[in-house]
């Protein structure tokens, strides 16, 4: 641990699909940023490379930096990757006899169409389920049965369990076993006894109980969760162990905290046993980062949009709160674990533009040129026009300015191919066609975000839009305006937002109890459900070194109208433990929330209200690094004005002169008017006509729409 007086560091590294990003906060208030390519499946190499890339400009070796580091926070795609590449441990499943097909049948067609685009759903003949992670011949039904109250209907046949375990391990060669029985979330006794038997008969096998990993109603999703966790568990364990070993070798002796898909941190040892928790933790960190900035800037309602090379992701923060996904999936597998909702579509800078030869209608995506061969203009062999190429053709990218001039963009070739493949078939000039494609892309993103907000009963006009990722800045002001958001912000940390999100997260544990009770349940009875959870949570946090004054216990309850299916997670706003007024307020809050989400008149009160799940989020508050803020100076941005060229200007209906600015020369307080383009080292910000961009005191670019 660092000595007093010397700067000590918090290091956060996020492994993404393409890049591994690092953010380092020093106790001296300086932020350092690093980036390296991800190195699947040996992700640890990329992690060290990324840290080195941040340490080098600091004049530190890896060992020097890690020797002065007090906390390492990590997010990784290791679990997603194991599932996507089918690289996990061969897994077997023990389940209730008579229900052996539950995993493979996926509640009927659900598993066949889930995760597919509407285009593919409309052609059912060409759709299939993804093969399950536990093959059907590695599923064994066990005689046992609980009922809907968790009462034993048929006792566990232990001899059958032992025989099944031997069969799976010896004949099916599985290294992991998932156990999922009907109603185990109400009575886990049978599952626990099975674990004991496995530990005795096959001590080397990795075991996941559905009642541990997903103690919720719904056997298909619970079983699927247990199987995913068993399948990826060993890999996750091995990865986190080896990463910590490597860091220790380089002189790090502090704790490693691991990001979870619900946006909280867990100590590495705990994270290793809950592989499903790490799924999509990167995008979750991105939303956490956006929330941190929103809080800092006084904007509680944020739409966080991230557009990179292949995907466009959207997260919504409402009133400073995050939304959990209702039916999370990894690849095409359903699972039950709290996960921040991030909606993703295949639209990015690399999205390929095509013209339907039958109808002459242009399309953006869904195919992508990816990182390789990439857009035509990168000159790496790309032969199909992409959205990035369109950005070049409409003047938003500067052939000589891309990534600090490290690549010169090939405008001639881009123009030639775009004309041949897009403009000519459309019977338009290259310029007109490129402008048209830009309008289509912007409109489609507008449609997507509108749909996402409508689904939540929200109005985009109440929100601030944060733009992250290399491609988003060129479109954000345009679609932000069409959505009529309050303003658009391109954060200073936009390029490493997920790593930035890691440092703004807290330690958090999620607990839940599934129990069906009427809304008239007394406060005392509700308190009795939460008390044991709180006790467990406090012990857990204490074991992690969290002081009692930094513990926060957040209660919430899922409620619904008895004859309707929508459950709404409602936060307990009153002081806990509850008194009767607090319990009554919970029900009122649910009703208000329900109407806001599902529309006026959507509630059927006469049927009564019931509580279905009791959730506790136990937080251990982490020290928040402060973002260095500067004084805002003069509005005059002319020192950063580096040129003027023809760019697409919507209000002019075509190309028109626009000012070109260098982000690195802008100072806090500088303000500039569109039409203009701001080049930053990693992205380009297009500022349409009748908008004003200002650099704020944290060096974020804030775009406001001029009043009419």
């Amino acid at each position, binding site marked *: 641990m660092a000595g007093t007086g010397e700067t000590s560091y918090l290091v956060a590294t996020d492994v993404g699909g393409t890049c591994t990003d690092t953010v380092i906060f020093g106790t001296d208030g300086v932020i350092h940023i690093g980036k390296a390519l991800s190195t699947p499946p040996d992700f640890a190499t990329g992690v060290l490379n990324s840290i080195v890339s941040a340490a080098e400009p600091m004049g530190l070796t890896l060992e020097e930096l890690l020797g002065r580091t007090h906390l390492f926070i990590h997010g990784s795609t290791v679990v997603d990757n194991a599932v996507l590449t089918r690289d996990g441990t061969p897994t077997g499943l023990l389940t209730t*006899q*008579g*229900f*052996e*097909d*539950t995993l493979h*049948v996926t*509640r*009927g*067609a659900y598993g*066949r169409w889930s995760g597919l685009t509407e*285009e593919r*759903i*409309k*052609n*059912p*003949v*060409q759709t*299939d*389920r993804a093969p399950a992670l536990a093959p059907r*011949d590695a599923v064994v039904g066990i005689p046992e*049965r609980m*009922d*809907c109250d968790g009462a034993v*209907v*048929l006792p566990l046949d232990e001899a059958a369990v032992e025989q099944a375990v031997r069969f799976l391990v010896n004949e099916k060669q599985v290294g992991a076993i998932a156990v999922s029985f*009907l*109603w185990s979330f109400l009575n886990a006794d049978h599952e626990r006894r099975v674990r004991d038997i496995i530990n005795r008969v096959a001590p080397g096998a990795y075991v996941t109980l559905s009642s541990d990993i997903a103690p919720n*109603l719904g*056997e*298909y*999703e619970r079983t699927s969760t247990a199987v995913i966790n068993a399948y990826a568990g060993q890999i996750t364990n091995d990865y986190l162990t080896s990463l910590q070993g490597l860091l220790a070798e380089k002189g790090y002796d502090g704790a490693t905290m691991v990001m979870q898909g619900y946006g909280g941190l867990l100590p590495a040892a705990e994270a290793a046993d809950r592989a499903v928790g790490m799924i999509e933790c990167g995008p979750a960190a991105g939303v956490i980062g956006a929330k941190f900035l929103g809080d800092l800037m006084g904007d509680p309602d944020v739409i966080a949009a991230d557009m990179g090379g292949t995907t466009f992701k959207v997260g919504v923060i409402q009133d400073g709160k995050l939304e959990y996904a209702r039916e999370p999936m990894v690849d095409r597998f359903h699972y039950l674990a709290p996960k921040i909702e991030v909606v993703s579509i295949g639209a990015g800078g690399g999205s390929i533009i095509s013209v339907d030869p*039958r*109808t002459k*209608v*242009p399309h953006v995506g869904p195919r992508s040129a990816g990182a390789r061969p990439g857009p035509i203009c990168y000159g790496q062999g790309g032969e199909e026009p992409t959205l990035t190429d369109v950005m070049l053709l409409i003047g938003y990218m500067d052939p000589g300015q891309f990534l600090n001039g490290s690549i010169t963009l090939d405008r001639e070739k881009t123009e030639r191919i775009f004309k041949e493949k897009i403009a000519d078939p*459309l019977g338009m000039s290259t310029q007109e066609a490129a*402008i*048209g*494609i830009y*309008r*289509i892309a912007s*409109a489609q993103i507008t*449609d997507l975000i*509108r*749909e996402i907000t*409508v689904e939540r009963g929200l109005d985009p006009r109440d929100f601030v839009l944060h733009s992250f990722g290399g491609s988003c800045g060129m479109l954000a002001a345009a679609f932000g305006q069409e959505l009529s958001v309050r303003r658009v912000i391109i954060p200073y940390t936009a390029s490493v937002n997920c790593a930035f999100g890691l440092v703004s997260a807290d330690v958090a544990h999620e607990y839940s109890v599934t129990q*069906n009770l009427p809304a008239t349940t007394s406060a005392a009875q509700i308190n009795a459900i939460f008390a044991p959870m709180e006790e467990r949570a406090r012990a857990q946090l204490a074991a992690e070194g969290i002081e009692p004054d930094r513990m926060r216990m957040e209660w919430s309850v899922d409620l619904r*109208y008895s004859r*309707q*299916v*929508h459950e709404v997670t409602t936060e307990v706003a009153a002081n806990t433990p509850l008194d009767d007024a607090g319990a009554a307020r919970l029900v009122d809050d649910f009703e208000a929330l329900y109407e806001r*989400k*599902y*529309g006026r*008149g*959507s509630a*059927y009160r*006469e*049927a009564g209200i019931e509580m279905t799940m009791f959730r506790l989020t136990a937080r251990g508050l982490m020290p928040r690094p402060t973002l260095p803020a500067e004084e805002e100076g003069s509005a005059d941005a002319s020192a950063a004005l580096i040129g003027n060229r023809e760019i697409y200007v919507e209000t002019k209906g075509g190309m028109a002169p626009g000012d070109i600015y260098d982000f690195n020369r802008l100072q806090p307080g500088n303000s500039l008017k569109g039409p203009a383009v701001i080049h930053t080292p990693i992205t380009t910000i297009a500022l349409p006509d009748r908008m004003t961009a200002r650099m704020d005191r944290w060096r974020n670019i804030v775009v406001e729409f001029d009043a009419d």
Partner: protein
Amino acid sequence: MDPMTFSIIRHRLFRIVDEAVITLKHVSGSAITNEGHDLMVSLYRADGTLLMGGVGFLHHLTSAAEACKSIIRRFEGDIHEGDIFLLNDPYTAALHTSDIYLVSPIHHEGRLVAWSACFVHVYDIGAVNPGGFAPQAPDIYTEGFSSPGIRLVAGGEMRQDVLDTILNMVRSPEMVTLDLRSMIACNNVARDRMQSLMTKYGAKEVDGACAELVNQSEDLFRARLRELPDGQWQSRQYLDVNGETARVNLTMTKKDDRLIFDFSGSDPQSPYSINCTKWASLGGLFAPLFPLLCYDITWNEGVLRPVEMIAPEGSIVNCTRPAPVSVATVGAIQSVNNAACSTIGKMLGASEKYRNQSTAVWHANHFAIFKFGRNQKGGDSIGILTETFAGAGGARSFADGVEIGGEIPNPISRMANVETVEAAFPVRYLFRRRAPDSGGPGEYRGGTGGELALVPHKAPDGGINYVISGKGSRHPMSEGLAGGYPGAPNSYVWVKAPEDGANTPVTAAGGLDAISGTQERVSWGVYPLMGRDALYVRWNGGGGHGDPIVRDPEAVRSDVAAGLVTLQSAGDIYGVALRDGAVDETETMAKRKSIRSARLQQEASE
């Protein structure tokens, strides 16, 4: 029109339908809408022709168009901004009374420019049996409230007297209110979004794009038809109810860029409520046509233009008033779905280019079982057994059908978890799994259907009752293709507990025959599930594709290992011999050879 603006408007029309569907599900909150996806929302042009069909129960797309048109005719000169009309008369346009259409005109600057329409299967419609399917109804008069068109909302104001009258005729008026409210909200969203689209791009531009979209679909569909061979293909469906069998006969003729579906020769209308009206038949044939032939074409009026239907009046596919039709959606309409799927599959299979798009019939036989009674918490429970939405995929020319993989007319359905059912109803499942030998054999096997058994559990009244409209336990209905066998038929068995007072079974790993008691087939009417009795249901698998004796023996071995095919079928139908869990190749070759020679030892027909 500028292709860019066209592309943007087209995309937005899709999203408008999506948003309206979301609204419908949100406000309704009912299980059948949210889980079964038993709903539909679509947009229509000013003249009531289909502009943009969404993903839902597809046989409604054309019927709702007819609903719009009949409202236009009935209320001509009296259609105003903010009006919403209700229509559920099957002899006017609806499929059956419980699928209520709400149809709403969309005005822009005072002019009628488009329509939106949606339906949900309402909680109850006041028929002789609860839940909407009325196996005991002898005629349309006993199938509940029905209207050929009535103004429910006038200029944005609910007509309370009309609403009260409707609610006065149904069970659980609160739930029906919610259903109606959700449809109103859905139409309101569609109207608002269409209006803002027109404000942004101009009503003329939008209508121009709509016209072009329709013409484009027509051009694309005609071009596809011209690529397919000219010829005629036949199929036949048998529907059995209470021992009586009715036929649906179909001859589909494809000539140049036209397609004619001729149902001549189908049986006269039935005394049972499986009949359907002609609008329902039209919807029934389009439901598979859209996803099979027009999977990459926008589903609108343009697809309708090249198609003609002939359905003899007074037949089961074009019944005349007052024939009962409440079970139509899982009766004659589904048979029309199947018959059309079969002839379209044959035609696609006849084309080199489109062979991979052909499929044997999927899940041909819904079983509507509505459970009702007091549950373990003392409250009333009523609901459909959602396994009927689980379905089974038909085999394709290149792959097996998807096991319990859904159906073609409703692309996004799902069934409830066992725990969800057991939490709400006083029943316990003994098993729920894939049913062996249910998938039609073939070189590519039809997807298996499933089987389940229920017993009463902790029921305050000793059990529950159910309404079953279960036809199709006699005839297989999921036809195969190119020699493939049909999927096995449905089976509904009431197992009556032995008199000796044995306990309710707690498990039945051996399936139906492991449940002690006498087996009695049930199919039509209202039955109890009480005491120590059990209800067994098996639902049909998909049809197979090609000759089973050329199926890869390894695939047969793995089917047997997974319990999808019995050892007996592996030998008798597939000609595959297994020894110690492995394929015996010599024996298999011999077996297949002997099957072949046995085939030719028969006398040739005629």
